[in-house]
């Protein structure tokens, strides 16, 4: 390997690891054309990258152990009760383990003797030890290594005599036997069976880990050391028990923090075990961490889903299994499975292809997402209604004669009914607890049948594609949805039906939009519009809707001019059809209003947002998710304009309705809480503000997970408040944590990072670290320069913060320029924002420190006026 070639390998490898698997494959193929040697090297490395790293560290640790043991062992040959020690097996977390044989030769039996690393204080302690031991000795289960005997040495060091078991540690067995996912689950179920048996006998294991579970030649597990940890912990002679020597990797948060340990602590450890069996890795990398750091990691974070680092052979671990593992090892015991039995049952469900309980919450979330747009249709809470309604309500303009029309409708009604009956028959009646769960399955079956070409009539097939695509899209299954619309477009092209094609393109454009493919979404909507007839009187409402879709994709790309113009065109059309398209009318008014708000045209924005809300209230009422969105938008605008009491009233109502209509797990509820928290902060009601901002962080953390950009976003809002309340250390911790999340969740030059860096800088200033604060402010400024239009208020805010850091580092000239430049930009763009008042505060502080009475008076007057 030459360094030059290696350099190229390095670059190629790094690039490849940023790509999704499919893109990676394509990229490698194209590299193969250009440089076969490089491509093959990189492909090998990528394959190796997926393999377990245990083959690197395990031999090192094992040979260290072997090296250390290559001295004479004073224990060999010693007699303990009826047993003589033959060899040392291991030195583990809680003591040493020896292999021994019976010397009274009643019967030949090798045993394992575990010598505890502690001493019993007195006769009482020895008595308790004996009682406990007898309880354990009563446990007889084929998968549990039995406890045979026990005693204490002359110095009161207790020991236990156990059945000697040979076998390989559980995780090693999975690897060397290359067990499939299902085989691993079956093995795991046996482990659960043993643990559940012990729990029925009121024994908690407390130290479940792969090394305590050996797999014998028949592939059956044997659990070692049941209840031993408790035996140790009950020892009152604490002076000699240094630390509870549990294995931190498998210890539950309650164990780590010294809370009471129960059967659900074993559920946790089983979750970690399953995590490792499935992914080849432990959920937390605790190696080398200090106890406090471990505690923080295990108690405050949720691990990556196992499927995200499953090795090549175990690819395709399902989300179901992710959910099962993460539920079992939930850091809050109350959110775990209530028993080992319940965990085992969920795995059994998965093995039988039935929906798992662990995903119950997520399904509610998907259903609520779906409800957000179809709150009325969901009354029956069944997919049937939607499929039926969507397929049948459609009014086909391209079939001209009434007789054709009637014939077509009849054929379609019959076909659709048959289709639905057919797919319902396919779904397993055992699984109909919770109609939402079966929805997805029904869809999949429907999509598959459709693909098999069971419907000869292409127009009906196209309609079904549209219906299924729409539902997939509402369920967040965008790739599947895209396939359905693409199929519909192709059929429409064959039929030469431009309107049908346009509808397909609209559907596809919406899916692309949801996937963040904004320019492709825009192109799709543009093409859809181009297919409509030249006569503006035809398909008017549809045209307006498409214009609004197009505007939405333009708005998201920052093209406000075209977005506004298209929305205005749509509004002009819709005003001519007051009876139709009220939904489009509200949405278009809302979209245009939000765009105008962003551009600072508050009067017209408020007018439009109020109209959108009024229309929605009249047509669908308050208990509707679209109405909620309009209420939220109006409240945000009122807040921005300083009409705080009205904003507060609306937000509180939104929060109530969201909980009521969309459930506790509604995924965007944190947005409402955060906005309300900010409002209270501006209203100087700090207790309320902190309450809602914290609630937002807790909610987003729970619903979206600890690594999501929105989690960081809400944390920054809370940090801002704490900073304002002069609690800089708490604010600093939050901001630093949020930046860490962002560094993984969003690109390096995302404006979120700029904004968070400014918060971070502010806390550093308060903590007396101006040079670090300067770095953070400069980073924010860099990002603004790259990612935002010139003259953006965020850049001004960054300049103001930077100015203060320079002032604190004795560079008053540079500081003054920055501080003075920044304020007027902010005052113009964000008159009511805290960024603006902060910039003013900095000027006042600056001139006050400089003793410049004139300037000081000027800015104080601005503040007080």
């Amino acid at each position: 390997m030459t360094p030059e070639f290696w350099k190229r390998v390095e670059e190629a490898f790094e690039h490849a690891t940023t790509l999704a698997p499919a893109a990676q494959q394509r990229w490698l193929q194209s590299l193969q054309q250009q440089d076969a040697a490089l491509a093959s090297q990189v492909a090998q490395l990528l394959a190796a990258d997926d393999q377990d790293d245990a083959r690197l560290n395990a031999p090192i640790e094992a040979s260290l152990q072997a090296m250390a043991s290559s001295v004479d062992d004073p224990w060999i040959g010693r007699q303990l009760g009826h047993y003589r020690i033959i060899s040392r097996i291991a030195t583990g977390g809680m003591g040493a383990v020896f292999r021994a044989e019976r010397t009274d030769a009643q019967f030949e039996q090798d045993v394992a003797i575990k010598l505890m690393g502690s001493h019993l204080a007195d006769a009482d302690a020895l008595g308790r030890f004996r009682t406990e031991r007898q309880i354990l000795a009563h446990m007889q289960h084929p998968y549990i290594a039995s406890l045979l005997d026990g005693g204490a040495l002359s110095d009161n060091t207790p020991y236990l005599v156990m059945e000697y078991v040979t076998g390989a540690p559980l995780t090693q067995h999975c690897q060397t036997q290359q067990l499939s996912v299902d085989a691993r689950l079956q093995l795991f179920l046996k482990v659960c069976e043993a643990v559940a048996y012990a729990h029925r006998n009121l024994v908690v294991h407390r130290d479940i880990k792969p090394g305590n579970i050996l797999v014998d030649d028949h592939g059956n597990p044997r659990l070692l050391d049941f209840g031993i940890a408790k035996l140790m912990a009950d020892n009152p002679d604490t002076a000699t028990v240094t630390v509870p020597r549990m294995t931190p990797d498998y210890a539950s948060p309650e164990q780590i923090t010294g809370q009471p340990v129960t059967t659900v602590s074993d559920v946790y450890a089983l979750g970690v075990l399953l995590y490792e069996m499935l992914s080849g890795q432990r959920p937390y990398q605790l190696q080398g961490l200090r106890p406090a750091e471990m505690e923080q990691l295990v108690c405050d974070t949720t691990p990556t889903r196992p499927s995200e680092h499953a090795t090549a052979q175990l690819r395709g671990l399902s989300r179901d299994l992710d959910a099962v593992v993460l539920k079992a090892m939930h850091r809050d015991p109350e959110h775990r499975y209530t028993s080992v039995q319940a965990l085992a049952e969920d795995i059994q469900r998965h093995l039988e292809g039935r929906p798992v309980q662990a995903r119950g919450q997520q399904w509610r979330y998907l259903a609520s997402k779906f409800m957000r747009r179809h709150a009325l249709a969901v009354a029956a809470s069944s997919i049937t209604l939607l499929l039926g309604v969507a397929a049948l309500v459609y009014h086909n303009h391209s079939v001209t004669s009434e007789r054709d029309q009637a014939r077509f409708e009849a054929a379609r009604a019959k076909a659709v009914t048959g289709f639905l009956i057919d797919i319902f028959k396919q779904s397993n009646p055992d699984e109909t607890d919770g109609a939402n769960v079966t929805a997805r399955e029904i869809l999949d079956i429907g999509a598959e049948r459709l693909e098999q070409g069971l419907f000869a009539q292409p127009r009906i097939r196209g309609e079904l594609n549209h219906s299924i695509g729409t539902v997939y899209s509402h369920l967040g299954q965008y790739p599947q949805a895209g396939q359905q619309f693409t199929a519909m477009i192709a059929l429409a092209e064959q039929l030469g039906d431009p309107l049908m094609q346009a509808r397909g393109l609209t559907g596809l454009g919406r899916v692309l939009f949801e996937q963040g493919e904004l320019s492709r979404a825009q192109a799709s909507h543009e093409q859809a519009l181009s297919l409509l007839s030249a006569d503006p009187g035809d398909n008017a409402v549809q045209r307006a809707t498409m214009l609004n879709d197009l505007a939405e994709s333009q708005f998201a790309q920052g093209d406000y001019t075209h977005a506004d113009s298209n929305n205005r065109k749509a509004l002009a059309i819709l005003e001519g059809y007051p009876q139709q398209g009220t939904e489009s009318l509200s949405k278009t008014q809302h979209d245009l209003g939000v765009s105008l708000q962003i551009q600072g045209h508050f009067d017209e924005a408020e007018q439009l947002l109020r109209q959108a809300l009024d229309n929605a209230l009249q047509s669908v009422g308050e208990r509707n998710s679209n109405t909620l969105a309009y209420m939220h938008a109006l409240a945000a605008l009122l807040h921005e304009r300083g009409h705080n009491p009205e904003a507060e009233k609306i937000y509180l109502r939104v929060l109530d309705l969201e909980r009521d209509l969309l459930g506790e797990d509604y995924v965007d509820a944190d947005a409402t809480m955060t906005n309300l928290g900010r409002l209270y902060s501006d209203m100087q009601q700090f207790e309320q503000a902190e309450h809602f901002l914290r609630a937002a962080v807790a909610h987003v953390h729970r619903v979206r997970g600890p690594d999501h950009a929105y989690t960081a976003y809400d944390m920054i809002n809370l940090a801002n408040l704490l900073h304002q309340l002069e609690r800089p250390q708490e604010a600093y911790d939050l901001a630093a944590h949020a930046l860490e999340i962002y560094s993984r969740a969003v690109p390096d030059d995302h404006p979120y990072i700029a904004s968070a860096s400014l918060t971070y800088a502010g806390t550093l200033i308060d903590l007396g670290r101006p040079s670090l604060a300067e770095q953070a402010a400069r980073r924010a400024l860099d990002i603004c320069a790259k990612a935002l239009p010139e003259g953006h208020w965020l850049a001004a805010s960054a300049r103001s913060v930077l100015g203060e850091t320079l002032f604190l580092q004795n560079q008053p000239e540079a500081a003054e320029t920055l501080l003075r430049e920044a304020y007027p930009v902010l005052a113009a763009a964000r008159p009511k924002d805290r960024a603006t008042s902060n910039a003013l505060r900095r000027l006042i502080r600056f001139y006050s420190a400089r003793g410049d009475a004139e300037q000081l008076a000027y800015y104080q007057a601005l503040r007080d006026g």
Partner: protein
Amino acid sequence: MPDSESITVLLQQWGGGDSQARDRLMPLVYDELQRLARRAWSGENAGHTLQPTALVHEAFARLVDAQVDWQDRAHFYALCARMMRRLLINHAESRNAAKRGSGVAPLTWDDDLAAQDASFDDVLSIDQALTQLATFDSRKAELIELQYFAGLSFREMSDVTGLSSSTLDRELRLARAWLKTALSASA
């Protein structure tokens, strides 16, 4: 046992460019690591799990004055990693030589002991692959040493090397992948 003052002085001298100081440090660290490993195993302290990270940190605590600056600290950890590697290799080689044909029956009980005998061969293969890696990318080889032979956490490696955790992650990811391909090729 050498006292922490003299080790600290040697480290500072080495940091100042005195390569003899390094040569004098090496056997001290080597012996100390070996001594700590054996002590951890023997009866006097039987409740000890044996991992490179524990030994290396203990060695640091015993040998070095905690007040040394970060460069000396970095040197010390790098040296520990190198000595740990040499210690294990030496032992593996002598054990392999002594054990040919002795037919020791494999036992397994705890995860500490899993596949112990095979691990000698594995550790020798890792050593060879690492030597090969160093011929064209010595930095990555050193990072691997720190990660596996000294058992440093990411954070500690970042402190010791001054590299950001994202750089470390990138470098180590490729280094590990390369080592695994090399190990597969030699197996």
